[in-house]
């Protein structure tokens, strides 16, 4: 029962927290001295970046389980995570250059963090294309791509530590002053609830679609054996 209504509950909670987080960000948070109003992009850009990486890891792990056990649920989880990762990744890759244009004067500097994130997004896009349009035997290739995407995640995380980048380091969130910190968590919570709610709905749809396909196959088989047309 709880499992059935969990995604809807998460989406409802997200719908309640979103207006609060936006009000906090725009009405209660002070304007950052050097970056000005453009800094407010941070409050959703960073959670979207974290979610892209998290979804890539979930997709990679689920794809590995799918490869090993041929599990329908794992396959659905991998596809749903990839779709959410695609949406969040696109959000990061579009809001990042907007913020960069406002603060660096250049939307794209081509540093390691940007390039590795773009690579992850392309891998996710390739995975989705193979899953949606690939031939029946292409699921193994898709799973391999998903695992490759998960391997890219630590590279994205450590890119700002390993190479000289214009992108801020991983310590920014930890060093936020209390006023900005208090506005960051509601936004992160809302976006987490929203994405996991949408992911839950998508998993349910994919499992249902798989069951429907099996039911259609059974009905068609019965028609063929009985020699009767049920329609």
């Amino acid at each position, binding site marked *: 029962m709880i499992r059935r209504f969990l995604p809807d509950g998460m989406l409802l909670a997200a719908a309640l927290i979103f207006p609060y987080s936006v009000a906090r960000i725009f009405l209660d948070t002070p304007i950052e001295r050097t970056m000005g109003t*453009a800094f407010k992009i941070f409050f959703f850009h960073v959670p979207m970046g974290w979610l892209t990486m998290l979804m890539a890891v979930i997709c990679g792990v689920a794809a590995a389980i799918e490869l090993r056990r041929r599990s329908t649920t794992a396959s659905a989880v991998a596809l749903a995570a990839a779709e959410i990762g695609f949406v969040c990744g696109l*959000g990061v890759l579009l809001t990042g250059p907007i913020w960069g244009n406002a603060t660096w004067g250049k939307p794209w500097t081509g540093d390691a963090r940007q390039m590795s994130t773009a690579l992850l997004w392309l891998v996710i896009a390739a995975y989705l294309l193979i899953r949606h349009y690939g031939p029946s035997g292409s699921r193994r290739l898709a799973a391999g791509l998903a695992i490759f995407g998960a391997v890219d995640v630590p590279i994205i995380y450590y890119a700002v530590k390993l190479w000289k980048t214009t992108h801020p380091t991983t310590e920014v969130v930890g060093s936020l002053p209390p006023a900005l910190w208090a506005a960051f968590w509601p936004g992160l919570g809302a976006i987490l609830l929203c994405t996991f709610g949408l992911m839950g709905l998508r998993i349910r749809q994919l499992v*249902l679609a798989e069951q429907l396909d099996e039911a259609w196959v059974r009905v068609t088989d019965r028609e063929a054996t009985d020699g009767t047309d049920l329609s």
Partner: protein
Amino acid sequence: MEPIFPDPTPEPEAAAEPGSEAPAQAAEVAKTEVADEANSVPDEYAPVAGRSLKEVEQVRMLESVAAQKVARDYQHIIWAYGILWALFAGYGIFLWRRSARLRADMDALRRELDGPA
């Protein structure tokens, strides 16, 4: 040969004789230096050299325009937040359409199974 540049260090004055006014004068000079240091203008308010008052005012005006522009940079914010919410709304519509298609498929299957009865 005479040096081209004279030595900038001043000639040492003749040693003060005991009981003269030299130590008292030195103490007075030191006191004045300390007072000057205390009353001196901080670096950030140091007079601008090599610029006319008009130029300085222009620079300050441009700086204040830039600061206001940074503080009220709503264009970037609107674009960023608009894109984020449009993406989520787009994915929500995609899920809703998939759901409608699944429901139609399920109804068709139900009709198929109920048909001969």
